[in-house]
């Protein structure tokens, strides 16, 4: 039993930290005005990503031939902790790095890898994931987007939804039905779609807090060349599942929640540490203690996932546990923060007493999505019960592992 990193890994961490110390001052500056125009967002992203790539601190698990550093999951985790949590640049390619490009890496042709991976590492391309559809969320395999043979390629038509950062994306990884006779997860293929091609329309979906990450994407007879299929034709589901299994151990999403969680804890401590007694503070304290414990459990389960990935075994139940932990903890903590803030928690601005420019109510609104994105809590509980505990499937339902849209 050893929860510490090895001396080599600790040395790597120090190396990363040294790079951050030196380069953070040269990083692109956060916007003065919000909302930041899209081209500025893209600029900041590309600049910072290029700096990381030049230092071999981007996509460190990928082979060096494709722009990575050929390192392992622990180094990837260290980089997530030391760089991703800084919030320097917008995370507009998080889905690309988390799902799309790993799919190319694991299932793509050599030509696809050489074409797409290196520029993405350098921040030149942004990717999005065209999986979910209006009628196919948790039950992804019921998707309806059609891919019809067209000369040496395909024509894609259909509607995708919950596509994070499609408004920034150069490429989309699209799951579509290539064999109309195939049912559910049979007869699907995985395509690389050029998002600038004719027939691709992106419509923004705003969160209830006004932020814009998600989009609808309409595909209207979009031509896709034959060599843009990833993996074998009609094997798209298997391609998606295999990637998902491989990547599950290295998502480190929970690490990205640390800054948000810390802001909430600090705000709560500021109020509860005040002079005046607050009605209900005893209950708030109990709930906060529970949340602090949950945060620790999230980190511990994250380490168990990492340990599994580092030892090369198949991912265990821990990744589902980590998902439940970060989503439910962040959601509950966001709500608790508002309760502790009291009347000022309902304000977005207009008074100097409003903390952090209304961050906390906006964070609370956004947190509703946590238990829905990247696998709803209900689907995760089914997975835990069926795959880990071996309970029978729901009556009348064949559960399928749905690749889920990622979290912020």
């Amino acid at each position, binding site marked *: 039993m050893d929860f510490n990193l090895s001396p080599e890994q600790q040395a790597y961490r120090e190396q990363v930290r040294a790079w951050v110390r030196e380069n953070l001052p040269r990083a692109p500056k956060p916007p003065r005005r919000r909302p930041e125009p899209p081209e500025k967002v893209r600029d900041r992203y590309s600049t910072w990503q290029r700096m990381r790539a030049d230092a071999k601190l981007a996509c460190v698990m990928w082979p060096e031939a494709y722009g990575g550093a050929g390192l392992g999951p622990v180094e990837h985790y260290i980089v997530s902790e030391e760089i991703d949590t800084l919030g320097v640049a917008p995370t507009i390619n998080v889905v690309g790095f988390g799902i799309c490009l790993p799919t190319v890496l694991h299932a793509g042709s050599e030509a696809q890898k050489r074409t797409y991976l290196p520029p993405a590492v350098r921040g030149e391309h942004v990717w999005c994931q065209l999986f979910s559809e209006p009628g196919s969320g948790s039950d992804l395999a019921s998707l309806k987007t059609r891919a019809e043979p067209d000369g040496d390629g395909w024509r894609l038509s259909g509607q995708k939804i919950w596509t994070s950062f499609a408004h920034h994306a150069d490429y989309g990884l699209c799951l579509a039905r290539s064999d109309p006779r195939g049912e559910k997860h049979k007869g699907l293929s995985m395509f690389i779609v050029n998002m600038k091609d004719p027939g691709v329309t992106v419509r923004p979906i705003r969160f209830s807090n006004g932020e814009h990450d998600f989009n609808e994407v309409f595909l209207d007879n979009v031509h896709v060349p034959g060599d843009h299929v990833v993996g074998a034709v009609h094997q798209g589901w298997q391609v998606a599942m295999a990637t998902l299994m491989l990547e599950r151990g290295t998502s480190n999403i929970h690490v990205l929640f640390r800054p948000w969680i810390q802001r909430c804890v600090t705000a709560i401590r500021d109020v509860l540490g005040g002079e005046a007694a607050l009605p209900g503070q005893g209950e708030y304290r109990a709930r906060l203690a529970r949340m602090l414990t949950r945060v620790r459990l999230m980190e511990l389960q994250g380490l168990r996932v990492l340990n599994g990935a580092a030892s090369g075994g198949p991912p265990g139940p821990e990744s589902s546990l980590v998902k439940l932990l970060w989503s439910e903890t962040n959601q509950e903590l966001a709500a608790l923060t508002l309760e502790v803030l009291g009347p000022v928690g309902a304000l977005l601005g207009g008074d100097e007493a409003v903390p952090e420019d*209304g961050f906390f109510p906006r964070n609370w609104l956004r947190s509703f999505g946590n238990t*829905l994105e990247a696998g*709803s809590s209900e689907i995760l509980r089914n997975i835990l019960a069926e795959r880990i505990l071996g309970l029978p499937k729901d009556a009348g339902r064949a559960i399928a592992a749905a690749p889920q849209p990622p979290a912020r």
Partner: protein
Amino acid sequence: MDLTYSEEQQLIGQQAREFFERECPLERVRKAWSDRAGLEPAVWKRMAELGWLGALIPERFGGQGLGHTDLSRIVEEMGRGLLPGGYLGTLAAARALTLAAPEALQREVLPSVARGERRLALARSGEGGRFDRLGGRFYADEQDDGYLLFGEKLAVLGLAEADQVVVAAVLGLPKRIAEGLQLFLLDADAPGVEITPLATLESGWQQASLRLTGARVPRDRHLDAAAGNSPDVQSPALAPVEALLDLALAFDALGGAQRVMEMTVEYAGLRTAFGHPIGTYQAVKHKCADMLFAVENLRAAATWAAWVLDVPPEQSGADPALALAMTRATAIESYDLVIRHGTQVHGAIAVTEEHDLQLFAKRAKTLALSFGSLAHYQERILAANGFAPDGR
């Protein structure tokens, strides 16, 4: 025993629902939120014509002289329709005037309120048991010819559109809390009155902050002048007005929660996953059942509380403060549960700006945060059950 609404009350509810659906559907609510405009004046005027602005005002001042249960039928529908504007501010302040003000002042103010020509707000020192700026902190310094009012409150419902505001202030002693609050009527545009509109989660309620820096109030606008100007005398209007507001907020929650439940149940019956409507899965089905549990409990509490306020205490056998505290606590918890479950059943669509559910989520959270916390009502419940305050 008869736990049903009278035929008249049923009619009021039906009329109110139809009116709000027609005159202020959710698209208009959205527009009011984005413009921060409150309710359209024409709709306000029509509400006056229907008698709703004078619902509790005595008939001799142009009102309807209705009871709390009658009124609740209208307010429940306002919650269902997310009616924007400062109706509740006008309601509460007019009630304070009715219960405490000298006849002349009532005659001056109330008829124009009932006609929809004058809007009011109510700013309390110590709302929700907090005696800081968040809960309100006002005091009145006596002068020869009246009072100078000082103090501030972060958020006052309806204040951004109010012509006048009733302020509950401590007499004379800036440090004093709790007891001895008396009521004063101030013009919104008077010197020493500073009103700053706020950007709020629920952008319909026309909330604004109030800062008084020596605002002058002549003696005839001191509502409780007759009760004496001792700092130990509490305005007799305060408890019933607080109860009225608690009741109204609970019925607003009931109407909203009921609608969200209906939306969710409908969706659960239509949306399919893995070949079945999602409502066939117990994870969804039991969330819907819990929503029903929450809504029906709130309905039971709220209708009881309205009745408690409508009959003398010796007849109800209930402590109105306890009834309202339980009702508001239930309203906060029930609406919160309905929003959480409703969102989870709807999935990601419910978290988007274009979906109506998030409008209700914002209203529900404001109801939970802005007018007394759950903890405040819980402490009142314990106090009424013989528990000493949690002071240690």
